């Protein structure tokens, strides 16, 4: 099932970590606190990297440019994977579309 957040995300979308979450990187992974749900999660290195890149200023396309220099994967695959993962993180309330961008 696709939510509005998933449908809205493309390479021009600018995302930021949800206001509800706080996170801290530890040895590559991220410990994420969902404040309203009083829930603590651990996110793997890739998800943690996307949280870092979601600075509320850079577009998802800019993330892909950065990640292309970090991972040995063809651009098309990378773009598809990043868009899918970003949409999942948005659907789970980890990322949100940045205001006023």
């Amino acid at each position, binding site marked *: 099932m696709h939510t509005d957040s998933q449908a809205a995300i493309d390479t021009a979308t600018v995302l930021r970590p949800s206001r509800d979450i706080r996170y801290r990187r530890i040895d590559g992974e991220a410990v994420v606190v969902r404040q309203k749900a009083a829930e*603590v999660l651990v996110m793997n290195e890739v998800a943690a990297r996307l949280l870092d890149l979601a600075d509320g200023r850079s577009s998802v396309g800019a993330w892909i440019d950065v990640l292309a220099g970090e991972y040995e994967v063809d651009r098309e695959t990378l773009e598809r994977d990043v868009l899918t993962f970003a949409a999942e993180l948005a659907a789970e309330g980890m990322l949100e579309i940045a205001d006023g961008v």
Partner: protein
Amino acid sequence: MSVFGDSFLINPDLFPARRSGEAWGSREIALALPGGPYRFSGLNADQKAAVRERFGAYCGTDGLGTPAIESVLFRAAEADFRAIDVRGWEYALDLDATPEAVRLAGLRLVGRLDWRPRLAGALWTPDGGGAAFAGIFENFLRVLVAYRLHELGGAVLHCAAVASPRGARLFLGRSGAGKSTVSRLAQEHGAQVLSDDLNALRLKAGAVTVEKLPFTGDYGDPRTPSPAVPLAGLYRLEKDTVDALRPLSRAETVACLLACSPYVNADSHRRDELFSDLLLLAPAQKAWSLRFSLDGGFWPILG
């Protein structure tokens, strides 16, 4: 959106703004808990007796003449509190934190922790003694000790602590995770259960140590203090039909500790500091996910 205290108080807006009121009496008592002593004044004779009965050898006179964490007990009116049917109800205190203070409301209690700049507490209740008062006092004390240990770089953890000659093992998990079950199984194997509910973790002399707290469920003696014990291992509980260990990453360990740090982990003003403290307390190479069955077969695989 719920208003702080509304579940327990008739008029949450009238929550005491400062540590003042009518004391219940002129008695004092000190409790020798980690981070203390914790000195309470303003008690009447029945309240003091109830605290002594509940906390046994933790109570003494040692803290009365020395620097201590000071708290005062005040009267509250019966009419201030909602009547609550507690059948089938899971009790959780209502907390509201700012950088300068923490307010708490619960069953027949309101309380404050204030930093002036030193931590000091205040408890208002309509109960003048007996077992019900002891429970109210304990609920306040749990929060006070959690914040005091946080102030000292430690943490109160929802966990069962089991001591053996090798040190103390912590089994972490929220209600229903299996802390009391593991405690029973460990006790059957001859280990000493410090508490099956809340224990303290602190750095002392460069070593991560476990300290017993008198906050127990079904296992552990809540009236007898015990010396601090080095941490031997930390286990995140997962009930299963098999017994197995898997090492936790550092992030998983910190996440587990954070999830099991009551009160302070819900305090947005202190969570970053708590994160940093837990990073120091998280044992390297000593933390596992423990899947355990109810037949006690997990004990030998702990080593």
